[in-house]
């Protein structure tokens, strides 16, 4: 029987005593890279823990590719979770930490060792694999947690702040690994507070605040649904001040700012379509438009619009 390929939250609420974790969350997360974005305490880790069955909802149901998180025996064959906490038992080496998990899957020792080395090499920890995890730096611990979460080749990888503490090279390699997985129709669900990074790596974004889902979907789609904030575009052109004057006459344009170099404008408009038509008219009048790029189709802007910069973590 075909399993549901999505991660589904259906009316999920979770409270910690009287403290709200998440409230009435309904989500369908498709395969690909999905970023959970929200301030500290907004409910990101709660959502991840619910997916992994570390906590259970008071109301609603969670399903990970058709498997209930209450069935770890099945779930953990398709899901790998790198939490923000160190999990290595005291005194174990990085290699043993990864190997142990694999042995529980029923692999032979030889096969488990092969998979452990493969995962460790992917996070560039081969040389340190024989050292005790307790002696690792913060970045190395992060990497060994990643290796442990992905060693069994899961279909769904859940990662709590996975890029924290990684050096630029490993960070780039890790992001590339995430992209490989996403291309293989796997789920990569991660949380991050580095919004620029989320912007670069995510296919989808889930914005969460105070335990409620504020927005979800592809970043561009989410942006286009926010009507109360004018869209911003960066227009590169030679005759910036004349183009600015022309755009300012358009009724849908709310703000035009000249760039410091005099060769660009930041334009705010209430109508993307009318803005496109206006630019067309300006171009026809022999004003060379070198380029137009959306200035607020990124997580940083969405975060600011929907959650507010005060909640940024």
């Amino acid at each position, binding site marked *: 029987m075909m399993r549901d390929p999505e991660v589904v939250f259906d009316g999920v609420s979770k409270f*910690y005593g009287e403290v709200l974790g998440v409230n009435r969350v309904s989500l369908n997360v498709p395969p690909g890279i999905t970023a959970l974005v929200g301030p500290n305490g907004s409910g990101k880790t709660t959502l991840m823990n619910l997916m992994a069955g570390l*906590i*259970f909802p008071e109301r609603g149901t969670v399903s990970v590719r058709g498997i209930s998180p209450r069935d*770890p025996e099945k779930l953990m064959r398709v899901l790998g979770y790198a*939490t923000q906490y160190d*999990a290595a038992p005291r005194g174990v080496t990085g290699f043993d930490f990864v190997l142990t998990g694999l042995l529980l899957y029923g692999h032979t020792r030889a096969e488990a060792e092969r998979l452990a080395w493969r995962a460790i090499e992917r996070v560039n920890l081969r040389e340190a694999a024989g050292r005790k995890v307790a002696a690792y730096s913060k970045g190395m611990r992060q990497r060994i947690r990643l290796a442990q979460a992905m060693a069994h080749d899961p279909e769904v990888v859940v990662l709590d702040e996975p890029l924290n503490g990684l050096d630029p090279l490993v960070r780039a390699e890790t992001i590339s690994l995430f992209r490989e997985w996403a291309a293989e129709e796997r789920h990569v669900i991660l949380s991050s507070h580095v919004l620029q990074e989320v912007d670069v790596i995510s296919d989808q974004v889930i914005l969460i605040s105070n335990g409620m889902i504020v927005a979800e979907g592809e970043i561009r789609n989410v942006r286009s649904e926010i009507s109360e904030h004018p869209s911003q575009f960066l227009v590169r052109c030679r005759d910036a001040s004349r183009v600015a004057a022309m755009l300012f006459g358009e009724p849908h344009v709310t703000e035009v700012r000249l760039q410091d170099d005099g060769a660009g404008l930041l334009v705010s408009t209430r109508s993307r379509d009318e803005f496109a038509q206006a630019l067309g008219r300006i171009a026809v009048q022999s004003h060379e438009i070198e380029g137009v790029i959306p200035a607020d189709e990124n997580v940083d802007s969405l975060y600011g619009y929907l959650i507010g910069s005060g909640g940024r973590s």
Partner: protein
Amino acid sequence: MNLAFRLRQALLIARLEVRRAFFSKRGFWVYGLALFPMLIFLGHGLEVKWKREAWSKSAASRAQLDTIAEGQTLDEIERRLGRPIRRHHWEDGEREHDSWLYSDGTRQVRLRFTNRVLTGIQSRQIANFDEDRTVLATVFQYFYLRLAIFFGCLGIFMNLFRGEMLDKTLHYWLLAPARRETVMIGKYLAGVAASMVIFGLGTAACFFAVMWYQNPVEVDAYWGGAGPAHLFWYIAAAALACIGYGSVFLAAGLLVRNPIIPAVVLLLWESINGFLPAMLQRLSVLHYVQSLCPVPAVPIDDDIPAVAKLLLAPAESASASFALAGVAGVTLLVLYAAARAIRRTEIDYGTE
């Protein structure tokens, strides 16, 4: 995933966890509890050895000591036996008191004089094997089973889940591709292995600590007779106590945060077990394991306080087979409750 696979998973988890159960920083005091009685017996043995060695130089013969009788004077006895090993003199108004100690190498004989006339003779073996075995039985039943293994298991088994929650590492096991019951059984087996080794060896060490200073002839006779069976049943009782108490504290570690509460409740329950109706007595670990002890403990004196008597009163004993079945029954019942609890366990390090 069949039963055999789950069993393999549980054994793997046990193998990984046993190291933690043995060497947990929070649990080193358990070794102290396990070895404390052995140290006491060792100390007593050293004292006996020292007395034999030191007193042999000035020992009187057994025949000489047997000629001493009340009414003899102090000077007369000194002429006959020589200088005593120890002497103590004190006065009480008009009367003079003296206490002299002699030994023939195996007995210590204390002579009491009033106004320099012998008024009392107190003779006892330097080491009395029968008496020491009864002391061992009493220490084993009243201290080792009721307190040392009880609190030792609390330290080992509560740590299996609560300790990991405090260390923020429990999620490692809950994220394993195994049923939670399998994880629980694996951890329980690790705790049982560690506690049985620690307290089994502790029991054996106590047993041998009582032997080493005894008369070799008596020890050989004991080993040729009931000795091996006694050793076996002491260790069996300790092992069963680990199995029973282990299950209770494992469940407690999953159900409550503060170990003091279940410890106090269980200790009281176990202590008043002898006064409970027969049906309720069966819901006790102590009831069964005490029944396996091969040597009766010293009976409780009438003059000890009522509360202490209540806490020390032994339950009616059960046959060995009934005791084994009873511990197994209690353990399975408690493990079933623990299995239900672990299915509901959530990771919430923030509130720890």
